[in-house]
């Protein structure tokens, strides 16, 4: 039987400015996260993702609604909630005056680890995130990417059942991004619940078992990653290769009203909404062009996301 790690019910958060109408950052949202799940909270800037994370991590109280983390209420049992979580926030939050090793030491102490446990875990995460060379360097001397590595590495330093990662891989190079993704998967396999926000939808698609998409403080889609992607079953991605692309073909394809269309010297990539439009595009390519190769696939999470968030602004990009 699955255990609910996080439960959010009718959550509302309003910000009250001076002499202003309250800004509703979260508008009656509800979702559950199961234990061991990698849950993606997605949405454009200002959608309410960070506000939701702040409430879930007890940084700010909700205006109304109920939120429990590992069975503990964020309003009435904030300390119990904090005992169950580990958080990577958007900022490169490191203790800049002290060394990388000392950052781990203090973090471990805050989480009640013994000196021996800290030493053992430092060895492990330092290897995992390639921090050995900078271990005795002051954190303020590290590059932005390195600071991010240190911050994320701390998450894998403790065994809290729930991890929150707010744009965790931002600023990391590809090698460390891969290491972080692998580490997140491994932790979930061990039974830790991971909540992440990211604007890298490929990453979310690769990592998440479940997704909730927010826009203007409301949930516009939610479910398993497969279920959310199914919303895009009527979206098709085409890659067409030609010897030469004629103006006539270009115009004919534009009449299919693609969500997205890019033309290079000998290839056209386009995203269309209907099954029939995909077939028509192929047919037109054969009739009006010298089609040499083609590829057709269903939509990626990114396409679904764009359709949900920005559907009305679908554009053609010649």
């Amino acid at each position, binding site marked *: 039987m699955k255990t609910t790690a996080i439960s959010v019910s009718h959550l509302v958060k309003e910000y009250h400015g001076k002499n202003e109408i309250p800004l509703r950052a979260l508008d009656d949202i509800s979702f559950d996260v199961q234990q061991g799940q990698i849950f993606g909270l997605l949405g454009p800037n200002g959608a309410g993702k960070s506000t939701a994370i702040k409430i879930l991590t007890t940084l700010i109280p909700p205006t109304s609604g109920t939120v429990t983390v590992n069975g503990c209420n964020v309003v009435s049992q904030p*300390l119990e909630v*904090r005992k169950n979580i580990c958080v990577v926030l958007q900022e490169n939050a490191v203790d800049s005056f002290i060394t990388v090793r000392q950052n781990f030491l203090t973090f471990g102490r805050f989480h009640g680890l013994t000196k021996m446990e800290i030493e053992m875990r430092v060895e492990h995460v330092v290897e995992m995130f390639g921090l050995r060379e900078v271990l005795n360097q002051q954190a303020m001397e590290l590059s932005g990417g390195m600071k991010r590595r240190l911050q994320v590495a701390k998450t894998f330093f403790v065994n809290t059942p729930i991890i929150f990662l707010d744009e965790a891989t931002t600023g990391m190079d590809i090698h460390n991004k891969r290491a972080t993704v692998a580490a997140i998967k491994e932790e979930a396999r061990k039974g830790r619940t991971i909540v992440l926000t990211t604007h890298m939808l490929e990453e979310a698609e690769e990592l998440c078992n479940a997704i909730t998409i927010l826009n203007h403080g409301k949930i516009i889609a939610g479910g398993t990653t497969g279920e959310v992607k199914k919303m895009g079953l009527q979206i098709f991605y085409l890659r067409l290769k030609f010897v030469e692309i004629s103006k006539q073909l270009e115009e004919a394809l534009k009449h299919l009203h693609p969500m997205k269309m890019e033309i290079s010297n000998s290839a056209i990539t386009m995203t269309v909404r209907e099954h029939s439009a995909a077939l028509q595009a192929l047919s037109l390519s054969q009739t009006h062009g010298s089609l040499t190769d083609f590829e057709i696939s269903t939509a990626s999470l990114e396409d679904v996301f764009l359709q949900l968030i920005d559907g009305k602004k679908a554009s053609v990009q010649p």
Partner: protein
Amino acid sequence: MTHVFAVMYRDALIRRTSLMWLFFDMAVPLLYLLMFGVGFDKAVGMGIIINGSTVNYNEFFLAGVLSMSCFGSAINQSYGFFHDRETGIFYEFLTYPMTRGEFLLGKVLFQCLMSIIQVVITLTAAKFLLHIPLRFEQVPLTVVVVMVGIAGWFYALATGAFVIRRNDTFNTFLNVAYFILMFISSMFYPIESLPPWLRYIAYANPLTWHTDVLRYLTIGIGELATIGLEIGGFVIFLALSFYFAVRALKKAV
């Protein structure tokens, strides 16, 4: 207490990274006493009449120096929140498994430990360099009162740091607070010599209460009844400061 110690440990690590910072933390009260105090002592010459007793300026100023160092330590410690907020680590702290009260207690206890060294250095210099007749039997109590003073001012200023989110605005706030609280108090001169309107403000100033208690403990000047009232006043000030600091910290995000 694990988390309180963790906060203290972190502050100790940070303080250790700057020897100049550490030196000034320890030496500022001493330097004030030796430079400012000695200069004024020569200028005043005949001494100061307070509560019917005549004391030289060094004797009078010793309590002011101790009180001033408490205020200064609290300023330094509260300033740290701005750096932590800029780096983002401040917000991460607030997600650690500790209460807001434990976080603030750790901060103040570390500063209190530093103050013990400050007090020892200052009192040693007062006794052996300036030959101030100290009440040695009251030294442990003096240390306690210094700690209480640091706590009171730290919580009050921390409240300001959490509410005022801009570094430059906080800086202005501190300059004004520093100016008003220090100069309208019994720190530099007996308040009996002030004009009545200033005297009443000085009587209501917690810095006066703290300085008077320290003066009573170090050189025995002051009326016990007044000192008792001032102790009570400062304890209420400490309790209110702590309450508001925790409250402000809860809303600091």
